């Protein structure tokens, strides 16, 4: 009976995880759909022959978003995942600036054109700044690689939809993906526990049946 309660408890926990998984899935789907739509808009408005795609990727790209697996707080061996911005790079600041800018843009799309111009000017200044920094004599860490904001692969002045796609992509990568992956690991863990509990219950049942049989046999012989 006790095992029964254990299994029920585990299954309840499992269903909660499943619920969380499906709602995160829905969120990820929405974000991905937004990214594709924005990329399509950017490509539609682009100059003839221009496509925001692999031809423009920087072959020396360095990841500015990286995975950190933290040991889980519970007793399980599976860690929880997080995706974090790499500290100490120029990009971190630049990327953040573009995110907040894009967020603003999403919030007030009506004033889009004005803001876009302003944003572009700001970005140009930003780029000038970063260029100025680059031309300065190198500091004590000459080999420290700079990660460049991926938006720059596509030019200095990038269209609004592309920046919106980037903002959505940040959210998907930093927020949703690590949560989904962690929940997936947690679900796998609970699955193992459920199977173990079921096996234990089956064994206990078999043992009970055996002792019953023995008892009935003894009765017959007596």
């Amino acid at each position: 009976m006790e095992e029964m309660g254990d299994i029920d408890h585990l299954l309840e926990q499992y269903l909660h995880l499943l619920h969380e998984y499906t709602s995160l899935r829905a969120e990820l789907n929405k974000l991905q759909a937004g990214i594709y739509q924005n990329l399509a808009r950017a490509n539609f408005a682009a100059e003839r022959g221009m496509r925001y795609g692999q031809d423009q990727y920087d072959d020396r790209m360095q990841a500015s978003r990286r995975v950190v697996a933290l040991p889980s707080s519970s007793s399980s061996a599976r860690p929880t995942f997080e995706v974090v911005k790499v500290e100490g790079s120029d990009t971190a600041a630049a990327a953040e600036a573009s995110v907040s800018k894009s967020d603003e843009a999403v919030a007030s799309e009506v004033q889009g054109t004005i803001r876009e111009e302003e944003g572009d000017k700001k970005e140009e200044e930003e780029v000038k700044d970063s260029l100025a920094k680059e031309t300065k004599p190198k500091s004590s860490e000459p080999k420290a690689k700079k990660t460049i904001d991926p938006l720059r692969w596509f030019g200095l002045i990038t269209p609004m939809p592309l920046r919106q796609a980037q903002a959505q992509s940040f959210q998907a990568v930093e927020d949703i993906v690590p949560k989904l992956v962690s929940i997936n690991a947690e679900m796998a863990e609970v699955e193992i526990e459920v199977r173990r509990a079921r096996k234990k219950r089956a064994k206990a049942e078999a043992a009970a049946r055996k002792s019953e049989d023995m008892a009935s046999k003894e009765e017959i012989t007596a």
Partner: protein
Amino acid sequence: MASTADYKDRQFLAVIGDEDSVTGLLLAGIGHVTDPPDSQKNFLVVDNKTETSAIEAAFESFTEQRKDIGIVLINQHIADKIRHRIDTYTAAFPTVLEIPSKEHPYDPEKDSVLRRVRRLFGE
């Protein structure tokens, strides 16, 4: 059981997907090319001409050969092409996550996590 050493160096996300999926995710800054002469990329852009063997090779490289990948993102319709590999992949690291693509929306029927759920409930 996975030890801390198994995952502490796994710092990159890898992507196998169509061009828009990869572009979208690289915009977030997950793309990484290792130092030359290797210059290994952590992404594969798949189009109609990409052979299934190339997809399989990339999946194997990300999941088995490279020790610096923590999460592998793969478009669900591409995962379908190497479904046997995905379904038999059980290692905890790196974790594989199927994502929708532009032309192929997410199908819960194919999701390996939800298939595990059905198996647990005996369907």
